[in-house]
């Protein structure tokens, strides 16, 4: 029997370390010789902390939301008494969240110990790389990837084989293969999860890609906000070097190839290839014009290939099972699976990997259980600040690069932030513009100044000072910014505004003409009143920071609108649903 505790960032944040300490304490106290181990994130963040118990036949019993106080019962009943504690085991909707998925990228996340290369090798790890280096030519590798139909998972879905081939064809004394692990989209965390849960799969993808294009060095550009991912990558690199999988004469092939980590320093624009290269060179991360493409002149002016974490994580699977097998998943133009990070007002937040071509409904309702607290589904933001908002009526849209782009959003890196009736769409657009304005590198005037002007208009609207003509002005600015910006950041920055105007124009009009926020989010447009549910308990009076609430003990209370600052504290403390927000 062995016990495995899920310790990705979200598991740890939910208290997995405390649970593990308690398990080890109780095992030691009872003198039990049971092995404990850690693993990465299995993707069901809403069930953390997760404790897996494997019996001697390797049958899995998965305990969820395991708080330290539950550990004693699990150990005495299951470990000592050999009787699983049914009430704590994963069941029903929680279990089908996992079973309804198709896992290729996340195949090992939450199963193996990411800090132990032996566990990765035991399940067939590095076999693909061995096979490639021993038996295949560079062209054969590229061809196999072409057969798989794999597209870049960083956003655009550009054919991976094409980039590899371009980097192979271009000559240079040095060639570089770079892993873009600068997952900057707020609301996306699949790359973090892969790096924390299965770092060797990424390394394998880079070694195979490096071989295909003749790269001399690999670099992983990882966000500094992901300390655990960096730590696990460092361990993985060290272990791979010790095995001879990296360094001189890897796998006895005569090829020298090593990978190093470069920590990013926090700039969203560095997700753009040329900006990322500038950052690798120690410069300000500002994009430059393409061509020349990185495959021609990249890092230190040498041929360079850049792919995203998830793209690399697919590679060893493709060489284990064949490109044709991979292409069986998905649909024409969008092959394979894609991992989506579900967050926001979703019932079951976490990572979902599905074949391309299934619908938004499959992911949001069938797998993730729909909306939290049974509220009404309003829309889903896909593709982060570069993406757009897809409204409820398009819930049956199939997820392919083509169909999602047609809605005005993009698949992007796979973030899905779900919104319910309480989310104000104008405020969402303002939020994203605020983000892109801050992250604009400042090189192109339209992006630098245009996003600021758009933000000012949106701020005005959400503060109840919108004017006739604002919507048209936003649309005009959006077009100009798209046309006048050099890189993807500026070209896509207006998308959240464009899609919210396209699908939720009525909300903009309500804000501007009726001075009303239907989602009751924009502070300047809501009022708080007290109805006759009030029992006069005085709780709200005491919580009000501006003394706007008056009333006697056990008497009806009222709010002085001149003093009220709409902080909402009265609504939070009221136990009788007497505070009305409208």
């Amino acid at each position, binding site marked *: 029997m062995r016990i495995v505790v899920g310790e990705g960032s979200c598991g740890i*944040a*939910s208290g997995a370390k405390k649970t593990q300490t308690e398990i080890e304490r109780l095992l030691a106290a009872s003198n039990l010789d049971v092995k404990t181990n850690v693993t990465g994130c299995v993707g069901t963040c809403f069930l953390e902390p997760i404790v897996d118990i494997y019996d001697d036949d390797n049958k899995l019993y998965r305990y969820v939301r395991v708080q330290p106080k539950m550990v004693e019962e699990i150990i005495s009943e299951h470990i000592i008494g050999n009787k699983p504690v049914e009430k704590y085991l994963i069941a029903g909707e929680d279990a089908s969240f996992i079973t309804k998925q198709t896992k290729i990228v996340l195949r090992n996340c939450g199963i193996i110990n990411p800090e132990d290369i032996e566990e990765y090798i035991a399940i067939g790890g590095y076999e693909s790389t061995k096979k490639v280096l021993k038996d295949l030519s560079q062209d054969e590798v590229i061809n196999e990837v072409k057969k798989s139909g794999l597209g870049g998972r960083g956003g655009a879905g550009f054919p991976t084989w094409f980039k590899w081939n371009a980097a192979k064809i271009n000559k240079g004394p040095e060639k570089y293969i770079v892993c873009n692990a600068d997952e900057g989209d707020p*609301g996306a965390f699949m790359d973090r999860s892969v790096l924390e849960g299965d770092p060797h799969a990424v390394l394998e993808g880079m070694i195979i890609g490096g071989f295909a294009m003749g790269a001399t060095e690999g670099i992983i550009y990882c966000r500094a906000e*992901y300390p655990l991912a960096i730590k696990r990558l460092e361990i993985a690199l060290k272990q791979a070097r010790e095995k001879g999988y990296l360094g001189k004469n890897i796998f006895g092939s005569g090829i020298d190839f090593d990978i190093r980590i470069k920590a990013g*320093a926090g700039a969203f624009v560095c997700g753009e290839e040329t900006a990322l290269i500038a950052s690798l060179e*120690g410069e300000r991360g500002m994009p430059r014009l393409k061509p020349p493409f990185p495959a021609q002149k990249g890092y230190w002016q040498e041929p360079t290939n850049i792919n995203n974490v998830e793209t690399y994580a697919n590679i060893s699977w493709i060489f284990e099972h064949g490109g044709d097998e991979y292409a069986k998943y998905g649909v024409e133009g969008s092959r394979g699976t894609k991992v989506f990070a579900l967050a*926001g*007002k979703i019932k079951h*937040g976490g990572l979902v990997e599905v074949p391309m071509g299934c619908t938004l409904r499959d992911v949001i309702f069938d797998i993730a259980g729909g909306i939290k607290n049974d509220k009404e589904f309003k829309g889903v933001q896909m593709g982060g600040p570069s993406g757009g908002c897809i409204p409820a009526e398009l819930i049956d849209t199939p997820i392919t690069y083509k169909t999602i782009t047609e809605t005005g959003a993009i698949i992007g890196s796979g973030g899905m932030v779900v919104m319910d009736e309480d989310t104000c769409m104008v405020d969402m657009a303002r939020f994203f513009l605020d983000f892109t304005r801050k992250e604009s590198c400042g090189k192109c005037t339209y992006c630098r100044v245009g996003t600021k002007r758009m933000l000012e208009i949106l701020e005005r609207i959400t503060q109840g000072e919108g004017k006739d003509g604002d919507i048209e002005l936003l649309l005009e600015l959006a077009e100009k910014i798209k046309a006048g910006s050099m890189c993807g950041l500026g070209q896509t920055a207006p998308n959240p505004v464009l899609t919210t105007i396209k699908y939720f124009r009525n909300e903009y009009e309500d804000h501007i003409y009726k001075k009303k926020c239907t989602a009751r989010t924009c502070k300047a447009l809501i009022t708080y009143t007290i109805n006759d549910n009030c029992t006069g308990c005085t709780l709200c009076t005491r919580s009000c920071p501006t003394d706007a609430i008056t009333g006697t003990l056990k008497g009806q209370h009222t709010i002085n609108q001149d003093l009220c600052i709409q902080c909402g504290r009265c609504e*939070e403390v009221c136990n009788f649903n007497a505070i009305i927000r409208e």
Partner: protein
Amino acid sequence: MEEKCLQGQFKELDPILDKYAKVPGSLITILQQAQEIYGYLSIDAINYISAITDIRVAKIYGVATFYTQFRLEPIGENLIMLCQGTACHVNGSESIEEAVCEYLGIQDGETTEDNFFTINNVACLGCCSLAPVMMIKTADGDETYGNLTKVSVVKILKEIKSRA
């Protein structure tokens, strides 16, 4: 001359500079490690790095101000990083920020008078399903806290303070 004036003041930087000063493209790495040691990048530290690496001060300043990770002001013993990602925003990160600021009596980017806490709004921390989230960097390392409420966030800060 700069180098002479500052010599001895930044001896902790010397092993880092020995390793990276002549490696092209290492400026960000040097700045990250310098910040790791001193908590921020002082003008003197930047001058010292410039003198040893021969990279112009203006360029170092340009890089340091481009990336959000770098701070030019000192921070308190514990850094509160409040996530401003989309999922956190949708789940009310603004009210969490208000609660933290009100409790500590400071704003984003500021440090408490006793030098114990600094508040920093940061980009998405990638724990979106636990939104709203914050990470606190203490002497013991980084810890992430999720599913925050106005009440729980204050409780966490009180707990950290009482441990000190």
